[in-house]
């Protein structure tokens, strides 16, 4: 089969934007474009795989939960869909500071996929086509359309690549190797060559997934049951908290043991990773069980989470035991785990290799530097994870539209959101493995909390046009309540009366010797806004659907004021360098005194701002001073 064998014909439907791929990045990209008024077609190798979750059955998690909330605040879809389709939800790190609280929900995979597909299907100006795109058509380095495997040419002005793990995909376990995408879906084997012809530099990455097993074959009595939170907090700021208080499914915890590890060690030479059959670079944060056993040899056991794939299926996911060992070893290995002694595998664990790009070829708007109108998002950009993909897809979609409108792109910086950190890292730093978000990557994480994503981004989403007037008004109302409540607490003083002292005693807090404002009491570590309600007689009533959020914000803002201020000051300084833009046509060779290494790196990456330049490895603080002086002189 060659695509050239198919006769070429021209599709006459009008499209502004073509999105290639309908995974988590593609869905957000396509929805954003269509919602912003542009005619959009989204291509997928299979309509049944729209918004597919081919690996873990959850959305969110540490720092990923932040991303989902940011996507939601900007007007994306992921948060709304998971709120409708989750079957268990937990706020992680609840005992830690608010910056690292993170929502994670178990999804009903099939339901998630179906609900998202419906949203796409019902979206005006958005068409879905089951076709493999094989060619990006350009004229003078400018996008003019795409060509499909069956020969159809679709003219458009912008293309967004969201091919995920499908490009030249290969799935491997043991000696078995199949040229398919995830879950045995058809791989996209031709597009890579077209991209290479356009001068795009490709990488080959690798990732993996554990086996899916039959619930009937599991002995849950040997495992610890893991419940969801008693009170569930929704992902989307638009979801009424009462709507997510559902009956939740359980997950199950069990452990590997020495027997498991011995089986793995004895069969290592049969792993395609160790035999050299897999060339792609795998992620360190999501190691296969064989990696863990080799690298952390002194660990006696590893945790294994058994998670449902949905309510209407018996398939369960074995979290913590992804693998590319041969089928027989997989059976033997899983069956050493307590509760899995008689386990039946439904789908094998496998490793998957795929083509992706060196994202340093992209501008921070996610448009290719060298090809006008070509954007990309998601795993294709060298990231990993559904949430990272959705965030990029949304930004790529927004910026494709702004490009067509002749407007400047939206670039969130590292102080505005995890999305900013994610994209800046991707387009600035070289990475040799799929990039995963982590809270430790965010230098201003006290400001980038999941609870204040709306405060950081709703206004931006509103200005872009993805947040409705009604939602924006509601947000403004919430902010007014928060501000005036903090103001009130600063001016309400409590005295040394017995009722107050008793409450303080109950919480182990120092007794009062004189009057003090409620605000100061809230800031005591052992107290909080909610426990003080007993002695706060004038506390106002808040609208029911906003109550939780308002109270949380008042508490956090007062409690962590000092730390928040410190980070705000750092951000002020950071912004100065971010706002010093570098002209597109700068000739680094003519900047005297830059070190040769710096000139090479700067010419290769062409950063948009001094701030971005300062994050390139190989560019020193002295080089930045030189650039500042050079640009100062040019003004």
């Amino acid at each position, binding site marked *: 089969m060659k695509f050239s064998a198919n006769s070429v014909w021209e599709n006459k439907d009008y499209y502004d934007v073509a999105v290639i791929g309908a995974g988590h990045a593609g869905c957000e990209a396509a929805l954003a474009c269509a919602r912003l008024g542009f005619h959009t077609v989204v291509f997928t190798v299979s309509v049944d795989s729209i918004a597919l979750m081919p690996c*873990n059955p959850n959305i969110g998690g*540490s*720092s990923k939960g932040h991303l989902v909330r940011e996507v939601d605040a900007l007007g994306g879809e992921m948060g709304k869909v998971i709120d409708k389709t989750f079957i268990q939800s937990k706020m*992680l*790190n609840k*005992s*830690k*500071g608010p*910056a*690292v609280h993170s929502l994670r929900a178990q999804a009903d995979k099939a339901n998630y996929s179906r609900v998202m597909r419906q949203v796409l299907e019902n979206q005006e100006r958005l068409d879905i086509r089951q076709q493999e795109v094989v060619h990006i058509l350009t004229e003078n380095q400018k996008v003019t359309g795409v060509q499909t495997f069956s020969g159809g040419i679709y003219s458009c002005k912008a293309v967004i690549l969201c091919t995920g793990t499908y490009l030249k995909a290969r799935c491997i376990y043991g000696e078995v190797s199949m040229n398919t995408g995830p879950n045995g879906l058809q791989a996209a084997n031709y597009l890579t060559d077209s991209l290479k012809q356009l001068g795009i530099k490709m990488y080959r990455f690798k990732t993996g997934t554990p086996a899916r097993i039959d619930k009937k074959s599991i002995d849950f009595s040997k495992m610890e049951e893991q419940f969801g939170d008693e009170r569930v907090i929704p992902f989307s700021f638009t979801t009424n908290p009462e709507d997510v208080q559902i009956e939740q499914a359980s997950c199950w915890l069990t452990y590997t043991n020495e027997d498991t590890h011995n089986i793995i060690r004895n069969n290592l030479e049969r792993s395609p990773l160790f035999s050299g059959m897999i060339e792609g670079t795998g992620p*360190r*944060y*999501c*190691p296969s069980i064989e990696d*863990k056993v080799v*690298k*952390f040899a002194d*660990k006696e056991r*590893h*945790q294994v*989470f058994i998670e449902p794939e949905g309510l209407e299926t018996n398939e369960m996911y074995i*979290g*913590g035991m*992804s693998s590319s060992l041969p089928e027989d070893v997989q059976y033997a290995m899983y069956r050493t785990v307590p509760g899995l002694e008689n386990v039946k595998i439904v789908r094998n664990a496998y490793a998957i290799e795929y083509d992706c790009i060196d994202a340093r070829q992209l501008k921070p708007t996610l448009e290719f530097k060298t090809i006008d109108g070509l954007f990309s998002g998601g795993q294709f950009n060298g990231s990993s994870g559904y949430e990272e993909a959705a965030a990029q897809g949304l930004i790529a979609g927004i910026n494709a539209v702004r490009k067509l409108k002749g407007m400047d792109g939206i670039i969130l910086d590292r102080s505005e959101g995890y999305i900013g950190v994610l994209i800046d890292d991707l387009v600035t*730093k070289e990475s040799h493995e799929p990039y995963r978000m*982590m*809270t*430790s*990557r965010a230098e201003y*994480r*006290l400001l980038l909390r999941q609870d204040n994503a709306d405060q950081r981004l709703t206004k931006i989403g509103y200005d872009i046009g993805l947040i409705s007037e009604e939602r924006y008004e509601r947000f403004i109302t919430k902010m007014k309540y928060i501000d005036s409540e903090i103001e009130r607490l600063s001016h309400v003083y409590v005295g040394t009366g017995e009722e107050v002292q008793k409450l303080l005693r109950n919480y182990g807090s120092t007794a009062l010797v004189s009057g003090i404002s409620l605000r100061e009491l809230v800031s005591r*570590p*052992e107290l909080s806004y909610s426990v003080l309600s007993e002695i706060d007689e004038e506390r106002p009533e808040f609208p029911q659907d906003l109550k939780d959020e308002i109270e949380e914000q008042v508490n956090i803002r007062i409690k962590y004021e000092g*730390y928040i201020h410190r980070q705000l000051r750092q951000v002020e*300084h950071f912004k100065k*360098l971010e706002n010093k833009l570098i002209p597109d046509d700068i000739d680094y060779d003519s*900047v*005297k*005194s*830059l*070190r040769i290494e710096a000139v090479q790196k700067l010419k290769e990456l062409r950063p948009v701002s001094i701030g971005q330049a*300062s*994050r390139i*490895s190989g560019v*020193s*603080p*002295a*080089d*930045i*001073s*030189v650039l*500042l*002086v*050079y640009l*100062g*002189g040019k003004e």
Partner: protein
Amino acid sequence: MFYKSEKDTIAAISTAVSDSGIGIVRISGEKAIEIADKVYLGKNNKRLISQRTHTIHYGYIVDNGTIIDEVLVMIMKGPKSFTGEDTIEINCHGGVYVVNRVLEIVIRNGARPAEPGEFTKRAFLNGRIDLSQAEAVIDVIQSENEYALQSSVNQLRGSIKNKISDVRKKILYQTAFIESALDDPEHISVDGYGEQLKEVLLELMGEIQKMIDSASDGKVIKEGIQTVILGKPNVGKSSLLNALIGEDRAIVTDIAGTTRDVLQEHIRLKGISLNIMDTAGIRKTDDVIEKIGVDKAINHAKESDLIIYIVDSSIPLDSNEFNTLQLLKEKKSIILLNKSDLTSAVQIDDIVTEYLVHNDNVEEFNIPVIEISAKTGQGIEELEQTIRDMFYHGKISFNSEIYITNMRHKKALMQAYESLAKVMQSIDLMMPEDFYSIDLMDAYESLGSIIGESMGEDLVNEIFSKFCMGK
């Protein structure tokens, strides 16, 4: 990467450190006058803040009630100053040690040590330097920076650098542990970790305090231009040193290889401080002890500000000399043709030719060559004059920078200490563990700035390499 704010008030010694006795400490920035007032005691307790611009005041620099030096203080209010900002210049009289002391007091009172070229950079950014001079400014920033980095690395070779790396490693490990637990709370728990961390912190703060104390002792502070005398055995190195100091301190014999270790002399050459090191002769040798001396000589040469290289003009050049000629490429140097009292076998042209042959990519020869006789004293005066000229024309590095580098180190150590103290405070306040990492990483960065290392991907790499993450 860590950037210093352009709003800070900065200070540095703005004259080359010499023995002329006068040295100027310059302070520039919004708080220059305020800071000067904290350390200056004038007649009738007059305050600098209430004085007019471009005036000079007589008085004392006082530290905790002790008079440090008798000084003249010049006030220049912005924008009519070199940097365009409020500027104070303190003219000190008490010599090198006192100038350094005054700078330290100024910094303790709120200024931060200036970065290399920072006064010039500010002058430019504030429009005080003409646009046509911009390129020169850029050169100053880059070259001073390289110099400062070089000298700081030189000083840090050895134990201090190891100590700092060691402390950083421990900080990184602790942070990575906390972060991995936050990233994967279902696999790794940090509950109750604070008490454990406190013990580590106490130990680390102790280590840092020790380093701060040693910096205060001035142990790492070197004064003067580091000068190394190089040459084959028996070319007359020790004789030259004796001629310069005027006494027979170095062992001078006719047996090649007698100066086996490094002799050091501090001399003053018409107002300039020189630390002269006489070294073992450089030649290939099988004698173990002599080889140690030779290696030391080469190391000292690499760290020096100036190399005086002596060639015996009565014997033809050989391969030992060719090696030394390569050493000269990177350094400011002077070549001496010694034994001009004997029959000459080497001419200046021979040196030029061999220098160019043995240094690839070097197209011109611009090292002063002087004919001398260390024995008779002929040419010694010309040598002194050459060194003076190089110094005053700025060809030999301004040694004050080394001191500033040290001041920066000390400041960074103090910042690291404070950051760790903040972690202690957070633990005592029962703050959640994620707050610890913020200050831990600040300490990590401060220490990194001393040894020229930034954070980069260190934390993420440490998390993945030390802790087993889930999925």
